[in-house]
């Protein structure tokens, strides 16, 4: 029973963390190239809707993932135009972009609803459910493929950013656009790629939220998860590994918060629901010092 509890708990943590991990990576790779991806929330939202629609119409969840990627690409291109080529203030742009995405998704959703479409998409199911997750292998089988993709991508991005030559160049652009330009890099191209990759990952986050968790869509269903991912990245010192840790920590907090209600202490549930945030804050207090790439958030205009 004890083991079973842990199995359920862990799989719940992973479920909650997966979308965050994708989005955190989306913010991270982008920021490492010097663009502060506040638009992550919006990309996630459009990704979520696209995933559900594609899955519903194709009947295949993986097509849903593809759909999310497609829309993520589009979102990325828009953001690129705004933050890399014009370039505009990344924070304001990001926030406005989120609003627009909220509007667009909710508008489309509304039209669909009027058209009487049922948005129950086929989900990416785990190989088995948490009952069997008592062994590690069991746990592995008890989470959706997207979770594993997320963990894999964390590893990939870590190796890429910190262990390869291109990774060095990538980070250089985030540290000093001027110096990178002087060293012969095409800052704009690098940032374009970065922003697009960032949006793709964020959109995947949306897909993970829907197909990997609750295969349906409602208005504004991301509920600020993008911002939590953003926080996780700062907390994780712009390092994939630590960002992952942050997301897991947060997921754990959320899972605990729910389970705490089961204790039936006469406490107002909201004190439990505060848990994830308080836990994160305490972790931040313990971690301290976080340095972001120096040019992140600073538009680079060629003179």
């Amino acid at each position, binding site marked *: 029973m004890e083991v079973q509890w842990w199995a359920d708990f862990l799989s719940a943590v992973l479920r909650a963390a997966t979308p965050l991990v994708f989005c955190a990576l989306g913010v991270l790779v982008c920021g490492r190239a010097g663009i502060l991806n506040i638009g992550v929330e919006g990309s996630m939202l459009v990704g979520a809707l696209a995933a559900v629609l594609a899955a519903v119409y194709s009947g295949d969840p993986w097509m849903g993932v593809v759909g999310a990627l497609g829309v993520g690409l589009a979102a990325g291109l828009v953001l690129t135009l705004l933050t890399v080529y014009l370039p505009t203030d990344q924070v304001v742009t990001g926030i406005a972009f989120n609003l627009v995405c909220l509007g667009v998704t909710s508008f489309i959703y509304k039209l669909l*609803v009027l058209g009487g479409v*049922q948005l129950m998409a086929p989900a990416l199911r785990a190989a088995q*459910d*948490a009952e069997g997750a008592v062994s590690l292998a069991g746990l592995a089988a008890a989470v959706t493929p997207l979770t594993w993709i997320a963990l894999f991508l964390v590893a990939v991005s870590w190796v890429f950013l910190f262990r390869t030559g291109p990774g060095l160049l990538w980070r250089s652009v985030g540290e000093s656009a001027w110096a990178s330009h002087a060293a012969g890099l095409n800052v704009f191209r690098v940032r374009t790629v970065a922003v697009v990759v960032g949006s793709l990952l964020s959109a995947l986050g949306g897909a993970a939220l829907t197909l990997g968790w609750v*295969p349906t869509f*409602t*208005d504004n*269903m991301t509920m600020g998860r993008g911002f939590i991912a953003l926080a996780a990245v700062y907390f994780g010192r712009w390092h994939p590994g630590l960002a992952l840790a942050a997301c897991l920590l947060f997921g754990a907090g959320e899972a605990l918060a*729910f389970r705490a209600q089961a204790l039936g*202490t006469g406490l107002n549930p909201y004190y439990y629901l505060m848990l994830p945030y308080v836990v994160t804050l305490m972790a931040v207090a313990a971690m301290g010092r976080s340095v972001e790439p120096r040019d992140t958030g600073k538009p680079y205009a060629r003179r």
Partner: protein
Amino acid sequence: AAEEEKPAAQETKVKAAIIFSIVNPARAGGWDRADWAGIEALRNEYGWEVTVAEGVPYAQTAATAAGYAEQGYDLVIFPDAGQTAAFLEVAPKYPKTWFVMMSMCEKLPNSPRVAAWSPDLYAYGEMVGLVAGKATESGIIGLVGGVPVPALITLFSGTIEAAKFVRPDVEVLTYFVGDWVDVAKHRELAALQIQEGADVIFPETGPGTLGCYEAAQAGGAKIVGFAWDMYEDAPEVMLTSVIINKPRMYRDLAEQFMSGDLEKKIVHCGAEYFGLADFRGSLPEETVKEIQDLVTKLQNGELPIPVVIHEEIGGS
């Protein structure tokens, strides 16, 4: 009042407005869906012209209502007890316009043209309890609430008492998600209840409800739909729905308004305004039979279910 209304009703279409706090009532949780059905009735059966405001924050409700009044609407309808504050504030300022609360209501604003159709949530909860208590095999029922507000406390209390009444050994789990909309959180809580053995889940919350259906699908539990027939949302898991007959309330309103004998009053809608949706074979015939008998008894007030408000489930 009557004399003025009649001509108005005849020469021009009646212009009514309804203010939803959530987006997309047609697709939201059962409560708003029931109201939506009511609106459809107004439009189709009485040819009213109904404007729908959606996603209106409580902070904005008063202004929105006032806006309608100033635009010369005949009625402004509040479907949500959360709008009580606005109801009380605005109505007195526009005595020419009718303001109607289609939700729980204790006291009316001091204005000649206000009315309320106030469902008795405890009775409603009792009906849910009867269904769930009869339907559960594991003897564990899960109640998922959005926010631990008095309305839900009352409703869930009714459910608990009724469930105990039909099945004394029943165990009722009440968890609150913390909001009405976050689908994922709803799913997690319902899933948790299922893990703890609940095989019948009753979600009383907003658009987030979808999450509970999903959890039930994954965990093989059954759902008692809230307020409207939610079958189409999740055919596999829907046990039945305990319907609040809002269309009836809206029809009452329409009839009285057209005939001009709508007056300042609170209509307390008891069990007779509630009913069960088709079980569609989700339960064996005889169980369904039993439940329906119980419900009829309840409606005729023949069931001695105690009225106990379990404040503790909301915590403090």
